[in-house]
């Protein structure tokens, strides 16, 4: 059975054109005008792009299935236009062994909505003491390693991790936080936290580790990726490192380029996230970094938490917010970038960082795997937590009207989202 995407404007790394796309047996079979197939997906007025790739998704399974499962998170991802997500390793048990990594991957295959690419932990149980078996996990297909949720505190261990990673075809991703400086922290350190009497998370705690890891990467030659940059100085450090030729990439989340610490004046724990929401000046710096290529990718840090755990005092509520179903709209609405640049940040650039380029990120060309997103850049919609596919409801954008929505998502040739509805 063939599938045709008709009437859309294709945007991929090769540029723009208005053509139909025929998909057959999971692969792009034809690209041209006036094509037809057994089933038609209307794309008039829509953008047809390579599927999005999220470098930073917490699927919570195994261990925290009350917050999210691989299936519910995959559905949220597909509805957000993603065809691949990197599943963060802070599961219980941790993704630090072949067994757990294979479990997560197979749960992803069973859900069949997106490619679930498990990240490995840098250290056993993310405890920061002993390296995880990089080579063994790399042989099982793991390309990205991180202790996300924790930064690797010990500089010697991080140096060794980088040295050991050389030649394995893997990238180490750091959650940049010197934890000694953030003990008990709830929100950005600054005038807002001072007023609210909440313990502050100083920007220097991020920037020190950004600096340390850039210098370690310069020393060792390892490939590193810096997760969820939140401060203007972090962006500057990465910009300078790239100019020097250090093999570093970086990501930013939609919440870090749309929300500030002022939101915490409501004392609503939905705005508690790690690293914390910062200030307008940081937002401007992150946007500039996304614009000039200093920041390579938009990543969601989709972090589901059940309502009851967020309905706790701010110091006890866990950090994190949903992101998969709102990322595209925020990127379109808030960044002031052209469509090509926006899609690059959501699709082929993160695909390259996760080394998923053979299957994801396009281009939309004959013979390529059919991982395709069709979105209407002008459709306006209002965020209602109860309508999100995630098992949790902790979106900070409740009630916000956004522009741009995914219409169809095709994963390995299978239309898993059609007209904004998940097909399974």
């Amino acid at each position, binding site marked *: 059975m063939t599938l045709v995407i008709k009437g859309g404007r294709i945007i991929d790394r090769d540029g723009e054109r208005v053509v139909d796309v025929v998909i057959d047996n999971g692969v792009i079979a034809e690209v041209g005008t006036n094509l037809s197939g057994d089933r038609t997906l209307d794309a008039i007025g829509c953008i047809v792009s390579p599927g999005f790739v999220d470098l930073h998704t917490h699927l919570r399974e195994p261990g925290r299935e009350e917050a999210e499962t691989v299936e519910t998170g995959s559905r949220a991802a597909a509805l957000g236009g993603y065809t691949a997500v990197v599943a963060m390793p802070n599961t219980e048990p941790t993704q630090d062994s072949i067994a757990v990594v294979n479990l997560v991957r197979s749960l992803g295959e069973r859900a069949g909505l997106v490619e679930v690419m498990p990240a490995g932990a840098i250290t056993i149980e993310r405890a920061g003491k002993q390296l995880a078996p990089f080579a063994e996990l790399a042989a099982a297909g793991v390309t990205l390693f991180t202790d996300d949720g924790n930064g690797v505190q010990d500089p010697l261990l991080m140096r060794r991790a980088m040295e050991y990673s050389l030649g394995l075809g893997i990238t180490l991703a750091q959650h940049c936080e010197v934890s000694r400086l953030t003990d008990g922290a*709830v929100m950005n*350190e*600054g*005038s807002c*936290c*001072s*007023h*609210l*009497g*909440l*313990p*502050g998370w*100083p920007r220097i705690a991020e920037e020190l580790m950004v600096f340390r890891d850039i210098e370690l990467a310069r020393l060792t030659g390892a490939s590193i990726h810096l997760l969820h940059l939140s401060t203007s100085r972090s962006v500057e450090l990465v910009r300078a490192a790239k100019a020097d030729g250090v093999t570093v990439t970086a990501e930013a989340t939609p919440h870090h380029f749309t929300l500030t610490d002022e939101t915490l004046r*409501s*004392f*609503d*724990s939905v705005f508690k996230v790690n690293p914390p929401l910062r200030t307008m000046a940081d937002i401007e710096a992150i946007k500039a970094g996304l614009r000039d290529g200093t920041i390579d990718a938009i990543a969601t840090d989709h972090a589901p938490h059940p309502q*009851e*755990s967020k*309905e*706790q*005092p*701010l*110091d*006890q509520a866990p950090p994190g917010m949903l992101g998969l179903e709102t990322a595209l709209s925020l990127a379109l609405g808030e960044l002031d970038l052209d469509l090509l640049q926006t899609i690059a940040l959501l699709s082929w650039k993160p695909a390259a960082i996760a080394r998923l380029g053979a299957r994801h990120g396009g281009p939309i060309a004959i013979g390529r795997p059919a991982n395709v997103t069709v979105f209407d850049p002008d459709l306006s919609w209002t965020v209602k937590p109860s309508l999100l596919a995630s098992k949790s409801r902790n979106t900070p954008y409740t009630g916000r009207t956004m522009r741009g929505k995914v219409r169809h998502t095709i994963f390995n040739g299978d239309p898993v989202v059609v007209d904004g509805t998940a097909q399974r």
Partner: protein
Amino acid sequence: MKHLRSIEELGAAGILSLLELTDHMVEINARPIPKVPALRGKNVVNIFFEDSTRTRLSFETAAKRLSADVMTFSVGTSSVNKGESLRDTIETVQAMGVDAFVIRHKSSGVPWQISNWTDASVINAGDGWHQHPTQALLDCYTIRQALGRKGGFEGLRIAIVGDIKHSRVARSDVQAFAALGAHVTLVAPPTLLPPSIEGWPVETSQDLDSLVGKVDVLYLLRMQRERMGEALIPSLREYTDRFGLTTDRARRLGDSTLVMHPGPMNRGVEIAVDPSELPGNVIIQQVANGVAVRMAVLFQLLGQGDSLA
């Protein structure tokens, strides 16, 4: 006014009207039988998630003098059953019929969270490092009473000394004193100031000696011993030396300078002299006025018009 969560949401006019109402309560408290039926049938629930003796007893006494029914429920946060969220706890108690919650919690913001989950009034009896509005009101009342002032604090110079960073009393007092027109100086080492005081209507100083004798009110905060473990001060000895009310400083205080402290006091640390030898010591009046101020707050939130007999 539905809730009392911060001094900010009260404003100068709100503070002054509560201070006027407190005058009535002081009069009631001076009666042979200090009890009125104003809040008969109203149910006040004190939930103290953090230890407190004086504030809890003060609120209980205030509610009883107005004839409200009062329940007090003390829970260490750690003893709240894991799995029951804060919201569950509040909704459970609310189901028994509550007109006002009086909340003390070690985490900033809890009274705001609770006010989203209940129809009852919420009174903040201290949240984290954030606010303690009834303390600020009783401090304002005590200053007015001791200095025989009516109206605001124009021209008054107040120094607040010590651990501002971790102090809900300081945050509330700064807002209240400044709203009434006082000139406020925060005296502390930089480690005990908040990360930013941008927008605060205050000056700062590290030189207590230059202020002693020049201020009308010397407000000393409690110095918690555990702060030493956080490298915020080298030692209590050095703290007292720089920021304590030592014998030498006490001698240089004018007779009319008020000495205040929110309690409980670390004798020998913030105040290294016998407080009874300080002519301007009004620390005990602060406690006494606490009951009257809390009666005023409860009556303002729950009472009806002229029902105060």
